[in-house]
């Protein structure tokens, strides 16, 4: 370590690894991880969401898991709630759809209409 620049670089790198512990206020993505969700592949969905956010460098959106949302025939389901916007529940969210939702809805601000089950809270 020879300079402040190097110190800043380590800080930025480590912050990524500590990202899960930071308070996030731009939005929240809930992945339903009930038994049916997991059976339908919710775990891959969860990992895809996290991976895509990471690739895009989005660090102010929290990803959490929940139990069953009660929409078993449309699993895996996720709920995207961006700040100051009504939340949106998506169904049939596989790996590819998860990445698309992150790109279009979270980053682009455009709801992916064809995957929507419901707008607003359940």
């Amino acid at each position: 370590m020879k300079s402040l620049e190097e110190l800043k670089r380590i800080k930025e790198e480590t912050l990524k690894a500590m990202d899960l512990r930071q308070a996030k206020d731009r939005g929240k993505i809930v992945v339903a991880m009930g038994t049916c969700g997991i059976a339908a592949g919710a775990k891959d969905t969860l990992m895809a969401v996290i991976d895509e956010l990471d690739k895009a460098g989005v660090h102010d959106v929290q990803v959490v898991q929940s139990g069953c949302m009660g929409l078993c025939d449309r699993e895996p389901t996720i709920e995207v709630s961006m700040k100051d916007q009504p939340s949106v529940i998506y169904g049939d969210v596989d790996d590819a759809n998860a990445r698309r939702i992150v790109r279009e809805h979270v980053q682009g601000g455009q709801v992916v209409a064809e995957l929507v089950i419901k707008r607003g809270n359940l």
Partner: protein
Amino acid sequence: MIRNQLLICAGGACITSGEKSVKDVLVEELAKNGIQDEVQIIETGCMGACDLGPIVVVYPEGTFYQKVTPQNAGPIVSEHLVKGRVVSGLLYRQPTSETRAQTREEISFYTLQVKRVLRNCGVIDPLSIEEYIARDGYFGLGKALEIGPDAIIQTIQESGLRGRGGAGFPTGIKWKAARDASGSPKYVVCNGDEGDPGAFMDRSVLEGDPHSVIEAMVIAGFAIGAATGYVYVRAEYPLAIERLEVALTRAREYGFLGRNILGSGFDFDIEIRIGAGAFVCGEETALLRSIEGKRGMPSAKPPFPAQAGLWGKPTLINNVETYANVPPILINGAEWFRSVGTAKSPGTKVFALAGKVQNTGLVEVPMGTTLRELVFDIGGGIPGGKAFKGAQTGGPSGGIITADYLDMPIDFDSVKELGTIMGSGGLIILDEDNCMVDVAKFYLAFTVDESCGKCTPCREGTKQMYQIMERITDGKGTPNDIGKLKTLGRVIQQTSLCGLGQSAPNPVLSTIRFFPDEYRAHIEDRKCPAHACLHLLTYSVVSEKCVGCTACARQCPVQAITGQVKKAHVIDQATCIKCGSCYEVCRFDAILKE
């Protein structure tokens, strides 16, 4: 790819409550469910709520699980992490309602605190220097090297930071004196000999955030022109020593210690010195002798350590909590530091809340917080519906703050007016069952034990005071004993060599001042109102209530109880050893304790 992080509190109390076995179970469960690569386990420093340990926090949600045991830890993985269902049985139950708190932010023990010194404790992995850096660690050092020694000292002076070790001496003045002193080499010392029984703030900082102390010591070394630092830690804190050693190694690897730190041309390194169980070594001159490898005996001041300290050279000595305050002051400025606390005692203070209080543990609050907020709002009040009687501050050097002063803002100066001291932050809560005479005697016994013997007032005087206290609690006190205690106490205060002796009479004088009736009851009525002094107790049978079940007679270890079956029993007072076993065994409330 990590999707969840589990933070497990690995502070002293949680380890005692079985943190290691909980961790083992969690590791095993993660593997069993095949998610060991997606979930990371991190052991942190003390999260403060010692009474709720072991504690596990699940991120990103921040779900706060308390009193986790190896038996009930499994569902944190199988339910929460696999199925996304919160394990509600392990959540904290709010004391005033039936609801449970999901996160730390919903628990009043946490929400009323302001974490500055403890900013990283329970948040980062204390063994990871990278996580410390991520939380702005070593940026204070970077700033310090940039602005230079004079500006550093000026910032510390403007911040109004006062020594957190007890007396509250302005830190900036100490730093300036060490800088201005002629003589070389100079030394920087950290006093981690936290000897006050009931105090564990410094232990938690050293265990939970060791780099904060290291960084501050490097800054101090640069400011006063020293190349060597010593951290003096009690031998009773092996975990603190271990984590400090790791931290020092990492700091050397990263170039925060050693030669040419951050390319500035400044060289500095730190050694650990381990105490060996002598309370007096918390006194700065005694501590310096101990670092030199000698008997830890204090010397008269002046000369102060800043002029002639370690090996007779100029030495800057501050305690752990004081150092931990320094890096954020450099980063955020003096104004920021003054934004909380009182005008003359700015900043926060860490207290170790212990004794008769619901939520024991480590709390950090702004200076000027009232005792009521500490004991009732954060501490959750007194267990078992008992009445609050007082709070002992400053350990064996301090005194009592009584219920009358619950609403007084606590800072260095306000507690001094009550005849006690802030001390290092031990706050022992006493309830109606604690006898103040007994508590004062307890502290005096401690000082008698720990007096180093160098000066007569402390060595002999405390012993004489102790004998009088013993006489009083044995029921053999005489009316002029209180006067004798006061006179003797004043002499010891005024003539002892070091702080240990000068403050040794405080617990007695303080309890005489606030609880004179209790002393009189012991001396004149031969009674202990709190039923704590064994020799002043009598046990007797209330014959109307006694059904003659013989339980007490069978339990009595000295056969002092006689009586026929189904007839009222009698206790022979001459034989009774006042062990209280009859009182505990009686199911009819027929034993009277008075």
